[in-house]
């Protein structure tokens, strides 16, 4: 149960600014909620980088027809996309937001799907091509209280705008960029998300807690364990369930294996995007070995459905421990091979060094956690900031680079593989005996309140915000996407870069699109 500070909507911008000045630089999560009668509002999770203190703010509006709130996009850059998401879901318009467009849904979508009174029949499948509007909306409130909307042009008519995606080999899924070019130099970039927006958060509101677990694996399929871990942890925290030591260890090992898996895939895809196709196959070859280990215990390759509320689905397979050890022994020298094949290559270094620099301030402001943030010098590892599971029992180094360029982002991930191996090595021999599943009531009900739990996913902080009204269904479940801040930073990262750099940057920030769109 979190302590939420309610702030009136008129004062919100000033209060937020105060918090920012007090050192609350990191906007962890921004969640829109429809409280029904009580109004529509937004919950903000802030963290003080220096003291690691957290504070939760909340503001709301009673007007359901034409709701307005003040934007904080000028305080935290990461709020820009999050507020667009809230607008998309709930129709809350943010005053002072530079670009109030829908983020995920089509421009011609009717209604706001995450409102409790949304009618699904309003939006049948439309097969007409979506017209991309070239105008942004800027809402300003005049001193007399009236609201006016400006429309600004996104791209000038004589700009050479090319469209990258949704079907493009280098967008890692169905992300779409509109890029304005001058020669080969990028002048402006406009990201379009939502091509794989599946409405998972809304679906969760009609599913029981154990059912919602299944959907988390499909958010970021390269962090299936970690995502599920976060949700399980959040529910366990809410219900006060103690998880046995054994489960903690298993979860930690699985998370780290998953991280290696994801980073290997990152390596493969980065190589492929930069044109070194052969290295792609090396990454995939070794990734199969992890999948074998997963398969032995969980039965799944990509989607494992392993964590449950209060435990894990099944005990580890008998050959799990030796197989993991064998894998660690195998991967260490192989990593050196990776560096020989790709990292040391002069072309690769030329393509990535000094390209797409993200400053530390920007990384924090955007909330770009994970490898991207750590490459910019921001020690943002949740495993260190707020240790969970068995992470307080192991020694590992948080890899931080200060360059903030593509090469640093690449190196952070490559070094993290080694750290993950270290963590697994420390745990694998000491898995304690114990239960793998805590005793629970047949129907799981979470006590009323709001809860937030976060894990370090493969590509950043993956948070779960849960608001419960004491039912067996969540009232509102929001997943803090690890990829959304990265995509919102793309415009900053790509300014004055070449098209080829866009590909390198996209590869190095390592987003997974279904995780962005949810």
């Amino acid at each position: 149960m979190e302590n939420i500070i309610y702030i009136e909507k008129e004062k919100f911008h000033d209060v937020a600014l105060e918090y920012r000045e007090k050192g609350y630089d990191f906007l962890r999560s921004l969640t829109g909620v429809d409280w029904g009668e009580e109004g529509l509002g937004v919950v903000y999770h802030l963290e003080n980088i220096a003291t690691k203190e957290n504070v939760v703010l909340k503001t709301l509006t009673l007007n359901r027809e034409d709701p307005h709130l003040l934007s904080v996009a000028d305080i935290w850059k990461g709020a820009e996309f999050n507020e667009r998401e809230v607008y998309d879901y709930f129709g809350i318009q943010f005053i002072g937001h530079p670009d109030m467009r829908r983020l995920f849904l089509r421009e011609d979508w009717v209604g706001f799907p995450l409102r409790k009174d949304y009618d699904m029949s309003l939006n049948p499948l439309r097969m007409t091509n979506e017209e991309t509007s070239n105008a942004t909306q800027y809402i300003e409130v005049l001193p007399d209280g009236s609201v006016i909307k400006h429309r600004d042009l996104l791209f000038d008519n004589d700009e050479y705008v090319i469209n990258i995606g949704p079907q493009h080999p280098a967008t890692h899924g169905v992300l779409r960029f509109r890029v304005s070019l001058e020669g080969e130099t990028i002048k402006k970039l406009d990201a379009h998300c939502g091509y794989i927006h599946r409405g998972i958060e809304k679906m969760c509101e009609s599913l029981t807690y154990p059912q919602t677990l299944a959907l988390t694996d499909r958010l970021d399929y390269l962090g299936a364990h970690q995502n599920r871990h976060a949700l399980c942890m959040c529910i366990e925290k809410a219900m006060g369930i103690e998880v046995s030591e054994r489960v903690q260890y298993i979860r930690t090992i699985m998370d780290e294996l998953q991280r290696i898996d994801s980073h290997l895939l990152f390596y493969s895809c980065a190589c492929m995007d930069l044109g070194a196709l052969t290295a792609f196959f090396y990454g995939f070859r070794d990734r199969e070995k992890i999948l074998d280990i997963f398969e032995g215990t969980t039965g799944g390759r990509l989607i494992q459905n392993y964590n449950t509320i209060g435990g894990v689905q099944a005990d580890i397979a008998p050959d799990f421990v030796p197989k993991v050890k064998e894998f660690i022994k195998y991967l260490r020298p192989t990593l050196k091979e990776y560096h020989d094949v790709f990292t040391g290559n002069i072309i690769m270094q030329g393509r990535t060094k000094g390209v797409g620099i993200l400053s530390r301030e920007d990384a924090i402001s955007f909330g770009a956690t994970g490898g991207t943030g750590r490459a910019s010098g921001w020690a943002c590892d949740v495993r260190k900031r707020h240790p969970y599971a068995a992470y307080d029992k192991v020694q590992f180094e948080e890899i931080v680079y200060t360059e903030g360029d593509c090469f640093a982002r690449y190196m952070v991930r490559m070094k993290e593989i080694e750290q993950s191996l270290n963590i697994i090595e420390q745990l694998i021999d000491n898995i304690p005996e114990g239960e793998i599943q805590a005793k629970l009531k047949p129907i799981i009900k979470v006590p009323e309140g709001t809860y937030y739990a976060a894990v370090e996913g493969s590509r950043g902080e993956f948070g779960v915000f849960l608001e419960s009204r004491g039912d067996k269904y969540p009232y509102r479940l929001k997943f803090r996407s690890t990829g959304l801040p990265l995509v919102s930073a793309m415009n900053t990262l790509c300014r004055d870069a070449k098209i080829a750099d866009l590909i390198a940057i996209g590869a190095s920030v390592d987003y997974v699109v279904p995780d962005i769109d949810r």
Partner: protein
Amino acid sequence: MEVKNREYLEEMVRELRKEGTNVIIGSLDEMINWGRGNSIWPLTFATSCCGIEYMSIGAARYDFARFGFEVTRASPRQADMIMVAGTITHKMAPVLRRLYDQMADPKYVIAVGGCAICGGPFKKSYHVVNGIEQILPVDVFIPGCPPRPEALLYGMIQLQKKVKAQKFFGDVNRKEDKKE
């Protein structure tokens, strides 16, 4: 990997052609279909989880190049087959349809995974197309969430068989009716 041979497609063809076909056209047909069947180039297209498994079958362990799926083309004009690997949402549906329209005939569609077949776990969502058959003609369905690479390979081999069983002249190579 041994692929279990289910010959119902071939049997069907045999039955259909019992009456006999024109010698020249028939054997030309057979040759062309043999060629087409063994050289199906997929489009680089994936939306979500299944896409990773699709990458896996291209990679070292499963290696679909063995069967002639070698060249994945990023341009729909040059691809023969689109593997719809992953969920198709309302926003994506027109794009997918357009991709399909951009492909050159003869073209084939494989629906991979629960999402593409019927909406899968997201069936009740407000933004998910419940089965791509609403928007595209599908040739092979590969169920699973996501299907294993072996399943994907099996499905692709089924498509090869299907292509080989088709009639090229007067069927596949017909001009598309101009419907306005």
